[in-house]
């Protein structure tokens, strides 16, 4: 059996006529955007939250990343966050909201708090819930009516997806990181290549990645159309979890680890679809179009495409190189890349250097804990000296629901996960990249190959 099947089968409550299954959900994360109507639904039915110990809330999409101690100024954002606060009070849900010392982006704080653990089923009304799959769990995004289902019954009625394994083997070049790996894979599979499947990432390259790097890869599994992505747990996973606030301790932890060690696909497991890639073929990646599948190696030129609308929107031409393109904004943040290792990579690169004068460079840490750790390590001083703005945690410019929007027609090299038209603001031009590439772009003021700047 595959790892996916082992975990899925262990969570089936019952099978329904017609082929669907009722799946038990171990952990439910909620945030302010996709929860209001679900809570409203419970109130209308006159029922309570079924399992109050299996739900956690945070405010991340709408929050400002500056002056979080002040009331939110944008009225609709304020309303959504206030509604979450009220609902959490009415229904007794722990809220890691503004002002909480462990507040942050939902997919950053789950693992940080030791809530995300191998073998679990985890859902949230947010596409990038797949991030938690890095711990060897089945984690995926759901719609608001499904949020209500989980609130009411701790279960979901689902069709079982197909399974896919993506192997990556070999040694990564210097300057290439997990963000480049996943952008490379999506460029090969396309934004719809994983549709109907749940992906398992495997291979020695994946094994050699840290937990945070694994989270980046699982985070973007949905950008290839898959339901979610997962990586089998190992010693790195157990070490990451040990000592965290909600993690099991002592004998319970030992028992847990014994079980977690069984969580891997069997030798003879069969997947519906399988791919294998060579890590040495991966270069720093950039996207040139308006979906995450439209990516190229930094040294390649814009390929011919049927999607001329995308090229027009980005103002790129077939056959041109992106190197040397002047960039106005760099955004380092989002649930894809905003953890301490990402910030350390950026700091190591920009130390002693300065951002290009015309560029706006913003770093938004994924959580208060990341922010605190960055300050303890002196990274904030490095960023400040280099002219980078270090903000407070939130989803920020990934999707521009708060004030952090990119102006029309301007380019932003972004460590986030989506480059759709208007994603970061109407007419904003998003180029997805790794934190290291983004750092190099910020310093040079234009698109560059970061490998040329490393000793």
């Amino acid at each position, binding site marked *: 059996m595959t790892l996916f099947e082992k975990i899925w089968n262990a969570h089936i*409550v019952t099978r329904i*006529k017609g082929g669907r299954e*009722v799946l*038990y959900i171990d952990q439910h994360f909620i945030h302010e955007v996709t929860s209001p109507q679900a809570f409203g639904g419970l109130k209308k039915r006159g029922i309570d939250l079924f399992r109050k110990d299996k739900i956690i809330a945070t405010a991340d999409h709408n929050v400002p990343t500056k002056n979080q101690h002040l009331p939110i100024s944008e009225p609709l954002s304020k309303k959504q966050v206030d509604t979450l606060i009220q609902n959490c009070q009415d229904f007794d849900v722990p809220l890691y909201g503004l002002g909480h010392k462990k507040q942050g982006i939902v997919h950053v704080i789950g693992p940080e708090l030791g809530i995300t653990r191998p073998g679990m089923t985890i859902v949230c009304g947010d596409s990038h819930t797949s991030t938690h799959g890095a711990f060897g769990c089945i984690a995926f995004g759901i719609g608001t009516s499904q949020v209500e289902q989980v609130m009411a019954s701790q279960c979901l*009625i689902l069709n079982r997806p197909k399974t896919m394994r993506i192997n990556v083997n070999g040694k990564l070049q210097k300057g290439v990181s997990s963000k480049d790996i996943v952008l490379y894979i999506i460029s090969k599979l396309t934004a719809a290549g994983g549709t109907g499947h749940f992906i398992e990432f495997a291979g020695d390259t994946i094994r050699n990645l840290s937990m945070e790097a694994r989270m980046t890869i699982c985070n973007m599994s949905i950008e290839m159309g898959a339901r979610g992505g997962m990586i089998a747990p190992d010693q790195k996973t157990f070490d990451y979890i040990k000592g965290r606030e909600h993690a099991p301790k002592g004998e319970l932890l030992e028992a847990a680890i014994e079980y977690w060690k069984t969580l891997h696909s069997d030798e003879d497991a069969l997947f519906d679809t399988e791919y294998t890639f060579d890590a040495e073929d991966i270069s720093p990646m950039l996207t040139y179009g308006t979906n995450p599948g439209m990516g190229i190696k930094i040294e390649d030129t814009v390929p011919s495409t049927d999607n001329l609308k995308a090229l027009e929107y980005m103002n790129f031409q077939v056959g041109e190189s992106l190197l040397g393109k002047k960039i106005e904004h760099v955004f380092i943040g989002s649930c894809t890349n905003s953890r301490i290792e990402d910030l350390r990579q950026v700091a190591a690169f920009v130390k002693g250097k300065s951002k290009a004068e015309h560029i706006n460079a913003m770093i938004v840490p994924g959580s208060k804990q990341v922010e605190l750790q960055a300050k303890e390590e002196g990274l904030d001083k490095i960023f400040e000296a280099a002219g980078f703005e270090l903000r407070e945690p939130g989803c920020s410019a990934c999707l521009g629901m708060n004030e952090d929007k990119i102006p029309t027609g301007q380019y932003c090299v972004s460590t986030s996960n989506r480059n759709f038209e208007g994603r970061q603001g109407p007419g904003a031009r998003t180029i997805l990249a790794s934190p290291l590439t983004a750092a190099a772009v910020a310093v040079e003021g234009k698109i560059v190959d970061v490998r040329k700047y490393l000793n």
Partner: protein
Amino acid sequence: MEALEKLHTTAVPLPIENIDTDQIIPARFLKAVTREGFGENLFRDWRYDKDGSAIPDFVLNNNVYKGRILVAGKNFGCGSSREHAAWAIHDYGFRVVISSFFADIFKGNALNNGILPITVTDEQLDKIFKAIEINRDHHFTVDVASQVLTIDEDFSIHFEIDAYKKECLLKGYDDIDYLLSIKDQIEQFEAQQVIY
């Protein structure tokens, strides 16, 4: 959700193909916070002109046809996934929609909101439109349990429906009602689960 077991009613013909959900309920009406009141805006831009006056020719306005069954051209409910389209159809008063093809997401939304989508062949759809045209008081019978749509003594159609969704319609359940009804099983599952 109201249960649907048997229906005996006249039908409203809308022989237009590819009716997308923006026609069923235009985007500007999506801000409401409850599921009620959408019936007023069903096919809004086909029923009313820019000044808000009723367009007399449109089938919902001309008083020729009425009933709780809507018969529509193929690919009904295509376009955006908005569940509001199903709410609007239900709130207006329809309980069954007959077409030769339904968009997937609309079909799921309809079933989860007490509306039965019945898929027939192109030929059967044609026959149904003709039957309504000949006699606007023509009554149709829908029997959910036996999955039969009866148009005439000598013309009836067996329709397909997902077994789980059929049970939900007969009981007046949406997915949450169903899950609440199996709470015992969920608690049994929890009792045997080992949590690490």
